[in-house]
């Protein structure tokens, strides 16, 4: 189904039309196959990058697309509806550009951003560690100042693009314990001592493998410190506020795809002499799914519009991520139910959608952490 959209400019409408065209012709036909083989779609991502999708919400001055978040998220949503892994890749890449774009010096932005946003390079965001996931402030990866550089030692976990990234945002400890001792460094992938480990065997998103990344005395130049020493945790959390909206948009797109597929199936499948969509038990299930998708979309775009207007949006972003990803889990699970046995086999995409939805409740802050963020805002009043 074509989603009705209200976009702020004619260019944004043209952009969405272009994105749907590319996604229909290049992504949708390949998703199931790449996922089944676990192949990372590097060339297809380059195609998306060349279309200008790797820096949409950043300033044109530095090579970005100059688009409001509201537009960027709708682009992500349309891509996620064809192939979640591709949308996830753009979302993680965009997140990885945030620290320099928002906290880099003018010289760093001028030097680094045009290439990072240009579409050829891919970024990774190294925050989680084996021992410190939700509690990122407890990280142990250390950066020791040594002359004109930092020497980084430690292990990051669950890193998207671990094997394919051209640059890594590395959050690491330059000072004492706790969040205030953390800094953000931007490392090139070729840096000696940065060693991606074996890929994890994941439930879904196999086309976008994750892995631990070992930092074994990796030397990163001091001019690659983003923000001040000790500002890293604040930068990481700010980046995640924005990144969470990307995950929410991915969830909306994925759920829309599951809904569309389930509706199509329920119209065509007959039992007891009639299409199953005409049984209230199925029709109402689909109605609830459709309502939930619309609600999550509206909520996500509302948070994006707050961000675009320069208002505080952290709490609304957490709510959108929480609601949209829980919604996607429920809607994709119900889509499997609507297809019955057919929903459980790989001939139809809904079992994959269901497996894919799960990750969205975990990444960029688990949904428990989102509730914690929201509750803290409520407690502060």
């Amino acid at each position, binding site marked *: 189904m074509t989603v009705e959209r209200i976009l702020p400019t004619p*260019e944004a409408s*043209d*952009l969405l039309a*272009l994105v749907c065209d590319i996604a229909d012709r290049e992504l949708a036909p390949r998703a199931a196959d790449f996922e089944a083989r676990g192949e990372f779609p590097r060339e297809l991502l380059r195609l998306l990058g*060349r*279309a*200008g*999708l790797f820096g*949409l919400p950043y300033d044109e001055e530095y090579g970005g*697309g100059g688009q409001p978040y509201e537009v960027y998220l709708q682009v992500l949503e349309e891509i996620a509806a064809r192939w979640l892994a591709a949308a996830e890749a753009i979302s993680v890449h965009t997140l990885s550009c945030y620290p320099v774009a928002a906290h880099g010096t003018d010289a760093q932005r001028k030097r680094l951003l045009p290439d990072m946003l240009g579409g050829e390079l891919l970024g990774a965001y190294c925050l989680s560690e084996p021992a410190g996931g939700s509690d990122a402030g407890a990280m142990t990866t250390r950066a020791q100042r040594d002359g004109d550089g930092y020497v980084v030692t430690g292990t990051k976990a669950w890193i998207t693009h671990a094997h394919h990234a051209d640059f890594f945002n590395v959050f690491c400890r330059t000072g004492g314990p706790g969040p205030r001792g953390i800094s953000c460094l931007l490392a090139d992938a070729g840096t000696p001592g940065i060693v991606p480990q074996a890929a994890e065997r994941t439930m879904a998103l196999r086309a976008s493998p994750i892995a631990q990344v070992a930092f074994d005395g990796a030397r990163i130049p001091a001019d690659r410190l983003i923000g001040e020493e000790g500002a890293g945790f604040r930068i990481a959390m700010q980046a995640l506020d924005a990144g969470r909206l990307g995950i929410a948009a991915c969830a909306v797109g994925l759920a829309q795809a599951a809904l569309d597929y389930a509706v199509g199936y329920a119209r065509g499948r007959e039992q007891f002499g009639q299409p199953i969509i005409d049984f209230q038990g199925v029709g109402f299930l689909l109605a609830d799914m459709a309502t939930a998708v619309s609600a999550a979309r509206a909520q996500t775009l509302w948070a994006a519009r707050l961000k675009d207007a320069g208002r505080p949006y952290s709490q609304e972003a957490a709510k959108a991520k929480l609601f949209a990803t829980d919604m996607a889990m429920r809607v994709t699970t119900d889509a499997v139910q609507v297809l019955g046995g057919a929903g459980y086999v790989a001939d139809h995409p809904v079992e994959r959608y269901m497996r894919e939805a799960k990750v969205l409740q975990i990444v960029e802050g688990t949904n428990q952490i989102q509730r914690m963020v929201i509750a803290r805002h409520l407690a502060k009043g």
Partner: protein
Amino acid sequence: MNIVVLVKQVPDSGAERELRSDDQTIDRSSANNVLNEMDEYAVEEALKLQEALGGEVTVLTMGPEQAGEAIRKALQMGPDKAVHVLDGALHGSCAVATSKVLAAALRTLNPDLVLAGAESTDGRVQVMPHMIAERLGIAALTGARKLTVDGGTLTVERQTEEGYEVVTAATPAIVSVWDTINEPRYPSLKGIMAAKKKPVQTLSLADLGISPDEVGFAGSTSTVVESTKRPPRQAGTKVTDSGDGGVQLVEFLATERFV
């Protein structure tokens, strides 16, 4: 090398298309209008030549106001500018009348090379390049699957049912292309933004020195008198396999002469 690419807005060939009941012209109001698919290949070929040889790429269309959307789509791929022949009197023009207008517009642009799609998905007559060539007194190399330029000489592999023919001509000439010639690029956000600022010149019939009665219904040499809807698709044959499914399938293929 200065290149003009002919483009046309057509109703999406993937969707249901209708003729207007009043004058038997294409109903553009209900259709999803798109840039004629084959024209994207012509634009791509022009851009590749420009990358190799320099010069300017102009897109030219004749059509109503909304054909401006097709111009914008084409410009987003990369051409430098566009010319839109727009005049209320053009409505109902047949191929012969259209070729008169396009030839007149091309004379004002004086290109070394005119590129066009081999056909449009609405009219599908494939004659426009020949008619324009005739009017301008230049060569028509049609149905190209490959085009090479060597100075002022064009060489084309002309796709035929049996294979291909190699034909050459001196510039200026018109070349029409099939979708085998290249892989059109996607526009980009940068292309979308840039297209907003590219010049689009609008020309009227008066600007081209053509009188209204030479075009439109009045000036057309052919008229669509009547049209009939395509019959609805027949339901296919269902083979129920009760042991002899294979035999039945082979019989079906044999009767339909597929084997």
